[in-house]
C-alpha cells in the first residue's frame, strides 16, 4: 500500500498540539479583547455575537435545564446507531464488491454516482419517507457515513500487493488463506481510516438532519429553535458543546486507530 501517498498527519498534529502555551495565550487574549469590546457596542452587535460572558451565562442556564439531557442523548443515540449501521453495511458491501469483481464492475456507475452525490440533498427525501422522528436522522447519518467505510474496505481488500499475493499463491495458499492472511491484514489500516472518517460523517449527518427537519428533539433541533428565537448566546453554547464532542470523537478515533491497526500508515479518503 506504499504507493498511496502516505500522510503522517497524526505525528505532525501531535507535535503542534503538544505546545500548549501559544494557543492558550492566543485564546485568552482573544476572549479578553472580545469581552472588553462587547459592552461598548463597537464593531459587534451583542444580539448577533454575544460576549463570552453572556455565552457562559447561557451555558450555566442550559446546564440547569431539564431538556438538555434528553436532547444531548438523543443526538448521541442517532450518531451511534447511524454510525454502526454505516460501518456494518460498509464492511459487508465493500467485502462483497472486493470478492466478486463482476459485481463491482456492474455496480461501478452507481458507486461512483453515489460517491459524487452530496448526500445532504437526500435529507428532505428521508424526512418524507421516514417521518419527523429519529428514523430519518439515523438514515441520514448512516447514508453519509456509509461511503468511507465501504470504499476503503473495497479498495483495501482489492488492491493488495501483487508480489505478496503471487508468493502466497505459489506456496499453494487457498483463496480463503489469501483472504484471511493477506487481504484482511493489509486492508485493515485503510478500513480503519474509513471508519474514522465515517464517525465524523455520522455526526455531520445526524446534526444536519436534525437542523433541517427542525422538529422532535436533539442538539440540532435546539440550535434551530434558539436561532429562530434569535437567542444567539444559546446557539453559541450548543455549537461549542458540539465542537467539543466532535473533537473528542475525532481524537478518540485517532487514538483507537493507533492501537487497533498499529502496523499501518494513516490514510484518509473523502467523498462527502
Amino acid at each position, binding site marked *: 500500500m506504499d504507493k498511496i501517498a502516505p500522510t503522517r498527519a497524526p505525528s505532525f498534529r501531535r507535535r503542534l498540539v503538544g*505546545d500548549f502555551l501559544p494557543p492558550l495565550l492566543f485564546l485568552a487574549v482573544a476572549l479578553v479583547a472580545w469581552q472588553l469590546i462587547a459592552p461598548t457596542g463597537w464593531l459587534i452587535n451583542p444580539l448577533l455575537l454575544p460576549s463570552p460572558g453572556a455565552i457562559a451565562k447561557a451555558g450555566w442556564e442550559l446546564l440547569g435545564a431539564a431538556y438538555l439531557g434528553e436532547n444531548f442523548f438523543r443526538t448521541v443515540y442517532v450518531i451511534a446507531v447511524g454510525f454502526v449501521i454505516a460501518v456494518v453495511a460498509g464492511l459487508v458491501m465493500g467485502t462483497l464488491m472486493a470478492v466478486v469483481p463482476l459485481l463491482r464492475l456492474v455496480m461501478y456507475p452507481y458507486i461512483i454516482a453515489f460517491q459524487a452525490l452530496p448526500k445532504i440533498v437526500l435529507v428532505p427525501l428521508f424526512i418524507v419517507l421516514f417521518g419527523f422522528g429519529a428514523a430519518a436522522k439515523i438514515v441520514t447519518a448512516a447514508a453519509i457515513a456509509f461511503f468511507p467505510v465501504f470504499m476503503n474496505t473495497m479498495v483495501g481488500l482489492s488492491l493488495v500487493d501483487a508480489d505478496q499475493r503471487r508468493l502466497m499463491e505459489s506456496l499453494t495458499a487457498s483463496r480463503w488463506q489469501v483472504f484471511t492472511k493477506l487481504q484482511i491484514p493489509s486492508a485493515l489500516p485503510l478500513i480503519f481510516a474509513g471508519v474514522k472518517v465515517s464517525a465524523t460523517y455520522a455526526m455531520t449527518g445526524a446534526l444536519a438532519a436534525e437542523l433541517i427537519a427542525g422538529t422532535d428533539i436533539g442538539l440540532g433541533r435546539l440550535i434551530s429553535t434558539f436561532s429562530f428565537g434569535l437567542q444567539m448566546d444559546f446557539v453559541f453554547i450548543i455549537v461549542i458543546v458540539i465542537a467539543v464532542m466532535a473533537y473528542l470523537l475525532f481524537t478518540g478515533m485517532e487514538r483507537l486507530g493507533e492501537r487497533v491497526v498499529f502496523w499501518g500508515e494513516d490514510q484518509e479518503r473523502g467523498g462527502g
Partner: protein
Amino acid sequence: MAARGSRRGLLYHPGMRWTLSALVFVGAVALWHWASGRTILGLHIHEIILPPPRDVAEVLWTLVVDDTGFLLEQLQVTLLEIFAGFGIGTALGLGLGLLLIASPLIRKMIYPYIVILHSMPGVVIAPIIIAWFGFGIESKIVQSTLGAFFPVLINTMVGLTLVDEHGLRLMESLTANRRQVFLKYRFPSALPAIFTGIRIGLTFAMIGAIISEFLAAETGLGQLIQRYHYELKIPEMYACIVLISVLGIVLFFLVEWLDRKLIFWRDDPERRLWQQ
C-alpha cells in the same frame, strides 16, 4: 486481477458489463414503481411519500422543458453561491496555509483551533451565518466559503510539510536557495495534496450552499426542494432532488477531470479497481 484471468468468460465482456449495469437501473425503477402505493410486510408505502417514477419523470420533464427559464434562474443562483464560496474559500485556505507554514509562531497559536473547527460539522453554524448575513445569497456564499476553506487549508499544510527529505537535501547540496527550494520543489510536490483538498473543498462548498438554502433562502435549487416539501408537492420535490444530484455529480466529475489534466502524475490506485 491477473490471477483470476482464467475465470474470465462471457460475463466479463465489456458489453455484458454495461448491459448488466443498465439492467440494474431498470430493475431499481421497476422496484420503485412496484413499491409505490403498496403494502409491503405490513408497511403501507403511500403514493404521497413515494410517488410512482412516472409522476416524477413527468414533473421533471415539465420543469426542464416548459419552465426552463424558472429553473435556470434557480440554478444560476445556486451555482453562483457554490462557485463564489469555493473560489473565496480556496484562496483563503491556500493563503492561510502558506502563511502558517511560513510562520511557526502563528501556526502554534492557531493550529489547535483549526483542528477543532475542522473536525466540527460546519453545518451547525449555518443558523449563525444566516443570522449574521441574512436570508439572501450572502449567507450561502459565506457557508460554502467555510466548506471549501478547511480542506484546502489542511491539505496545503500537510502537503507542504510532508515533502521527501532526500529531494530537499539534493536541492540544498546543489546550492539551491530557499526560494528555489520552495518554488521548484516543495510547492510542486505538495500540489497533489493541495488539489485533493480543492476537490474535497468543492464538495463541501456545495454542501454548505445547499444546507444554507435548506434552512432559509429566497431562491436556489435547495430552497426549491424545501418549498415543494412544505407545499407537499412531493413529485416536484423528487424531481428537484434528481436535478441537484445531477448537478453534484457533474461538478464532481468536472473537478476529477481537471485533477487528471493538472496533476497528471498522480498515481491513484483506486482507478485500477474499475478496469477489467
